[in-house]
């Protein structure tokens, strides 16, 4: 199954080293992260040394090397959000789920991340959840957001 997915991503791009980043982006989108197995496959099929694939994948923050949860919650901790208390929101999320930032919960439902700025400072503190943006957040709203996401049945998620 895994190999089929990877094969469809690599279709028409084999032996083209310059396609490396595009392929890795597709892998990231399809699997939610870039696995060691996927990197080995990409390296073999594109004709790029594994060191280079690993170097590129670890260089860009857009690529995650660890599995990520179904729900990715990103807390902005940029200057504007920070002064409006994004730290408390992050603490609420990590405390509620029992993980540290960048980690996935045991049930595979959540990953909490923090970024330096998402460019919506006027709306701060900002939290993005699976790509949609929540503005003027506070710890209470964060708690409700996580609760509502946790209640949804896993079939509702189109990821992965």
């Amino acid at each position: 199954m895994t190999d089929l997915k990877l094969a469809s991503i690599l279709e028409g791009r084999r032996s083209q080293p310059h396609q490396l980043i595009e392929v890795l982006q597709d892998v990231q989108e399809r699997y939610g992260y870039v696995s060691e197995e996927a990197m080995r496959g990409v390296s073999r099929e594109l004709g790029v040394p594994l060191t280079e694939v690993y170097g590129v994948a670890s260089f860009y923050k857009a690529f995650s090397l660890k599995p990520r949860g179904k729900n990715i919650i990103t807390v902005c901790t940029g200057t504007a959000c920070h002064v409006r208390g994004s730290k408390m929101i992050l603490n609420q999320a990590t405390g509620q789920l029992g993980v540290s930032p960048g980690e996935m919960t045991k049930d595979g439902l959540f990953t909490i991340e923090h970024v330096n700025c998402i460019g919506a400072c006027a709306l701060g503190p900002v939290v993005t959840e699976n790509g949609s943006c929540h503005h003027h957040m506070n710890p209470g709203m964060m708690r409700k957001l996580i609760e509502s996401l946790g209640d949804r049945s896993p079939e509702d998620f189109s990821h992965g």
Partner: protein
Amino acid sequence: MVQKVTINIDGMSIRAPKGTSVLDAALEYGICIPHLCHVPYLSDIGACRLCIVEHVVNGRAKITTSCTLLVEEGMVILSNTEKVRKLRRNIAELIVAEAPNSRAIQDIAIRCGVKEVRYPFRNNDCILCGRCVQVCTGRYGVKAIGFVGRGKDRRVETPFNLHSDLCRNCGACIDVCPMTVVPCDGPMKVGEERLCGKCEPKMAFAEETPGFCVWCDLGEGFQCERYTLGVRNQAYP
């Protein structure tokens, strides 16, 4: 026939084959430009920033690394101005603070005129000069190791930190690593790091004739190209 261009380094006219770097041309003529990440015959990545020079274009001087700057007809280079020396000293100071536990690093710091280190010592065992990566990819074309991560997490590693199938255990990466040259007084313990500075008296002659290679002993320590090539020429005349 090799096409040659004329460039001007510190007021001296030099003929150099097209396609060589300013650093190589200068070293050939005995102009001292301290360098660390440069390995003879391999492509340069300009990682250590020690070989900086002033490149004068239309009366404006631009600071750039000479190892990645290719010679061009009519180029004007200043390799030993007060500005360059100050910047180079500061770079060497940062490098020696990062990884003082090597004779090569200590030597280059002395050669660049570092008298005191104003930064906290870290006792790291890598300065990310990339010599190992260059020798692995360039001379052997293997790419068993490479740079991984970015910013403060940047490091040299094999993929997934496992032994790479491509590695042939040739040991070239260890041979060129400046951190494998032990300080004269033995390895420094954590908390005892310092600027060695014992070779400072040797610098007197070099200071009198700034900018010229005087075959200082220090060059041997930091694997200066003059030494590595000189030794090779003696071995294979």
